[in-house]
């Protein structure tokens, strides 16, 4: 997985958009930077398949020892697949946030929102500002 090929939200989610026979699908996860900020992951709540999600709105939550954060969808659409395996294996999210640590796949309903997302360079710049 090449982070350069992903699109990023301000709230540290990433999306990889692919063409499928059923239309555009976004695989969604959280970035290595977010995982590093959270550090002590203790729990993640993911939606069920079929849940409608909206760009910028929460679709789940991720909890660390210190705090809980919303997981915000980077796109509008419907959840078509959930990475349930990581719920009991949060180390997968810590070790490979851009690969095996993906969270949900969303069938994109409206592509207009994609333009709001950042490319890798813009996201890196945002992270540097944070530090």
């Amino acid at each position, binding site marked *: 997985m090449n982070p350069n090929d992903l699109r990023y939200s301000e709230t540290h989610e990433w999306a990889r958009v692919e063409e499928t026979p059923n239309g555009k699908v976004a695989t969604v996860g959280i970035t290595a930077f977010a995982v590093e900020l959270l*550090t*002590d992951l*203790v*729990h993640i*709540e993911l939606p069920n398949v079929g849940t409608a999600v909206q760009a910028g709105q929460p679709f789940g*939550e991720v*909890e*660390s*020892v*210190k*705090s*809980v954060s919303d997981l915000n969808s980077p796109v509008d659409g419907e959840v078509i697949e959930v990475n349930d395996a990581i719920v009991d294996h949060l180390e997968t999210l810590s070790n490979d946030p851009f690969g095996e640590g993906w969270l949900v796949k969303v069938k994109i309903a409206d592509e207009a929102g994609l333009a709001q997302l950042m490319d890798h360079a813009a996201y890196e710049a945002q992270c540097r500002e944070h530090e």
Partner: protein
Amino acid sequence: MDGQQSTIFRTPLFEWHAAHGARMVDFAGWSMPVQYTSIVDEHLATRSAIGITDVSHMGRLRFEGPGAAVFLAELLTRRVSDMREGQIRYSLVTNEQGGIQDDVLVGYYHNANGQPFYVVVVNASNRQKIVDWVHAHLPPERAERPGQEVIFTDVTRLWAMFAIQGPRSVELLQPLVDVDLRWMRYYHGAQASILHPAAHRQGGIISRTGYTGEDGFELSVGASIAADVWDVIVELGKPLGLVPAGLGARDTLRLEAGMPLYGHELDEHIDPFQAGLGFACHLTGYDFPGRDALREIEQRPPRRVRVGLEMVGRRVARQGSRILAGTDDIGEVTSGTFSPTLKKPIAMAYIRREYAEPGTVVSVDVRGRMEPARLVPLPFYRRNNKGA
């Protein structure tokens, strides 16, 4: 409110923290490390070996002079006039209504010349409030009353303080001080020489106290030698498994130990009896602010009491979460975290007394979704009785 403060204080260890990867946060007007690596790792190292934490933000107020004992007895909820040299007591400062203004440790020591003094350790977030409270009760005519003089000094910025906590802390610290730590009892301390060139012949105060539920010590040394002494302790401690621990681990450790934290379990609208701190109130001796109110409060059972909660699921209930029994709002969570030792979410809460029976299952509103939780006795964690 901390927002009024424009300058953020730095402890003498600030550069050390920055150089060792600490994530710094503003805490009660101080720039403090919340964690260096991981809260869980720092927590577990403190339970199994040693964690060292910079607690120089804690306020240290020094009282001396022939009138100091009576003055403190008339300020604190607990008797101090009968304290023996080297003794430390947990006490409270209450307002006239009996509400808690701060929880403190008061220690009674003699300096190298044999002169007695008291040190009152207050919360960083309450330091200014307590300093003002002291001044309000210690006008010049009181402080200078012939034969009963009281000299009050806020020594917070002059002295650094380290919490060295964990089962191997005696082994680590014994070679560094000239007092016998093996026989130092819990809640006792002493003025000590520090047996290392890094201390430049300065002494310190070492006490068997802490905020982790583990065996351990707190060491105060002058700000000018603090960084050097810290370095020595860290280097000697590494082979024993010592890690630096930030305020994040300090919070999870105290929560497992069932210890209250001001601003969470304690505030000016909570009285000592509902907080489970009646033991720290001595109501038949000296008259201190709030004593008469507390005598009345003591007569009636508290409406709400402090309890422990274990969540059944994995979501953490945090400060402010409402607690329900059926549709009745019966209480509120004051602190919550994921317990690294128990590997499940735990919380402390105030709950209506009639529901406060261990084993009771209640519902907690965690961000809009109800989660079951079970009342459990405090503390959540109790160490094996080794050491003092």
